[in-house]
């Protein structure tokens, strides 16, 4: 007798529903074991991680703040990935958006520029992000260059460009030579939604992006085109859909969203441009996109959930002295189980008697 993984003829609907629940249950079980081994009370720790942050307004706000850039970027990435276009460089588009928007903020600093500043910053960030994303997209459709590599490489170009600006031309003159711009003027700052809190306008924009993407994918011809191009390129050609155009459009849209997320982060929670404005949002968003199964609403949930683990992890450090590494292990375990359980939607276990002939077909 032998256990093999066999591809299902059809996706199992039951497995699709049960899979996330199994993944969460398995994660909780593994975490409990780990926490018990560390000498912590698993039930109390899991409450600190998952329940406490959801029970007060402050933590809820912080979850939304943390999730905002992740969701915004991931929605754009999902469009790309559905069209079979692999944008790995959202981090770079995020940074370039931040730079382009900050340019307006820095240039209008100390002047009596009016309320047009913030909208102009948002618009220029989106445009810059889109243009930056079009570089690998054009390389792909014109020259067949791997967009995975080129978009990833451009992340480092963007990082160093930002670094140059804040250490050189845009450095705060009163900042003792430290690499940061001066704090942005109020008209160049993303407004907060609750007085004294940190929840800002960006959260609303992220929700709008989710809604727009859901409508686009579910209700429009363009959305259908994107999905067909990704799933069946040949069929797409027969239907008159141009795969190259789909790549260009999805890259541009995801670049625009990443750029927008970048300026919102800089002009919102941070308040000035500096190196290290992103703790890897562009890369974490790839995980969020897949955790959400490339579905806009799924991405919203996945982004909020991942944000919850960050906030809960901090509170666990404070309340129960649980090291940060445990939180990271925990995020890793979660991803592992989610992906493992997802494979059960497409595959199933089967016991077979030993026979090398059958094994070959299992892929």
């Amino acid at each position, binding site marked *: 007798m032998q256990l093999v993984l066999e591809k299902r003829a059809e996706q199992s609907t039951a497995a699709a529903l049960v899979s996330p629940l199994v993944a969460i249950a398995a994660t909780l079980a593994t975490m409990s074991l780990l926490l018990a081994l560390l000498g912590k009370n698993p039930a109390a720790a899991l409450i600190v991680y998952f329940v406490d942050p959801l029970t*007060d*307004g402050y933590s809820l*706000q912080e979850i939304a703040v943390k999730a905002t850039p992740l969701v915004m970027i991931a929605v754009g990435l999902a469009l790309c990935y559905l069209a079979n276009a692999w944008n790995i460089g959202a981090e770079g588009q995020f940074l370039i958006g931040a730079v382009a928007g900050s340019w307006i903020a820095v240039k209008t600093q100390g002047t009596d520029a009016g309320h047009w500043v913030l909208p102009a910053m948002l618009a220029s960030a989106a445009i810059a992000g889109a243009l930056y994303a079009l570089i690998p997209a054009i390389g792909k459709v014109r020259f067949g260059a791997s967009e995975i590599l080129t978009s990833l490489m451009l992340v480092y170009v963007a990082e160093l460009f930002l670094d140059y600006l804040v*250490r050189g031309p845009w450095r705060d003159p009163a900042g003792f030579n430290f690499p940061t711009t001066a704090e942005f003027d109020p008209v160049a700052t993303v407004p907060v939604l609750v007085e004294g809190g940190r929840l800002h306008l960006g959260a609303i924009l992220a929700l709008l992006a989710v809604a727009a993407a859901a409508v686009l994918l579910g209700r429009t011809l363009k959305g259908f085109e994107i999905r067909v191009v990704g799933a069946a390129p040949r069929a797409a050609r027969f239907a008159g859909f141009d795969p190259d155009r789909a790549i260009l459009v999805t890259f541009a849209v995801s670049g625009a969203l990443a750029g927008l997320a970048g300026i919102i982060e800089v002009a919102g929670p941070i308040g*000035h441009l*500096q190196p290290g404005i992103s703790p890897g949002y562009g890369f974490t968003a790839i995980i969020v996109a897949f955790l959400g199964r490339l579905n806009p609403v799924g991405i919203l949930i996945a982004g909020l959930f991942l944000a919850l683990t960050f*906030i809960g992890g901090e509170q666990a450090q*404070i309340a129960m002295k649980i090291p940060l590494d445990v939180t990271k292990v925990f995020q890793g375990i979660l991803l592992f189980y989610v992906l493992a359980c997802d494979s059960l939607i497409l595959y199933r276990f089967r016991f077979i008697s030993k026979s090398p002939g059958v094994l070959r077909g299992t892929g």
Partner: protein
Amino acid sequence: MRNGFLAAVAALLLASGVSGAASAADKLKVGFIYLGPIGDLGWTYQHELARQAVVKEFGDKIETTYLENVAEGPDAERAIEQLVRAGNKLIFTTSFGYMDPTLKVAKKYPNVHFEHATGYKRDKNMSTYSARWYQGRYIQGQIAARMSRAGVLGYIGSFPIPEVISGINATILGAQSINPNVKVKIIWANSWFDPPKEADAAKALIDQGADIIMQHTDSPAAMQIAAERGKLAFGQDSEMIKFGPQSQLTSILDTWAPYYISRVKAELDGSWKEQDTWGGLETKMFEMAPYTNMPDDVKKMAEETQAAITAGKLHPFKCPVVAQDGTTVECKGGDHLDDGQILGMNFYVKGVDDKVPGK
């Protein structure tokens, strides 16, 4: 719908604020924000040692909490605020990049006291503290000049900020006081902690003829390379002798414990006030590791220099200080440069064979 949501959030905020106040404990809660993981050496580790010293000193009277690996970006403000909301009344934020986030949280919670390391923005409830490491670098410069056969020192810089620039200048001035012809080669790692890059920098410097390696980065990688190649080196932040038993000349040790203990004490007896502390050898804000791998006369010289600096008889930036371009720097501090000139230092002194990046 949206208004309803906002109202709910606001109500929750109010409710949590009230309950937070009610559950304040009798013990003084002291919080720490760390830049890196604690590990077993380096910048964050030295702050952790000081925290442990605070715990040992005050025992049951206080309770400490730390958050480690807090990036100096958008997450910092939240991490600091989380400590406030957990009831910490005195919070140490231990890296430069926490300056603006600390200030924001300080403005929001006027009854909590903040201590920010190495920054320059202060408020009624926010102090700053740092150490005059340049004093130690002057001593290292003298030792290096005595120990180098080639007369070429290799220097691994982190970021070209004033603290690092003034460290390079103090090193050169110390070295020139022994041997006016000493040369310094600089490689910028553009990181505080990047072992492979630091190791590469050390290798490149040795290949360029340097026989003494000095660093303003955090890892022992350069020390290990020096040990491998049979060269001498200085540690940084922590004791690194175990990585180069035959190589380490000395190391600048961050010793925050006396300061942290004094500030917690002030908080406990109600005398805490906003202040700017920039301490040196005289207040044990940092210390020098034992002088090793050098002849007795060099060791004696180092100890004498250290004693002179500690006693205030010798200032590393004593006038005249001549800048790289040959101009004499204005002497604002009587017979030495004043603190403002050192804190904002953005020029090399004569003898540095490099250009200040971004200038």
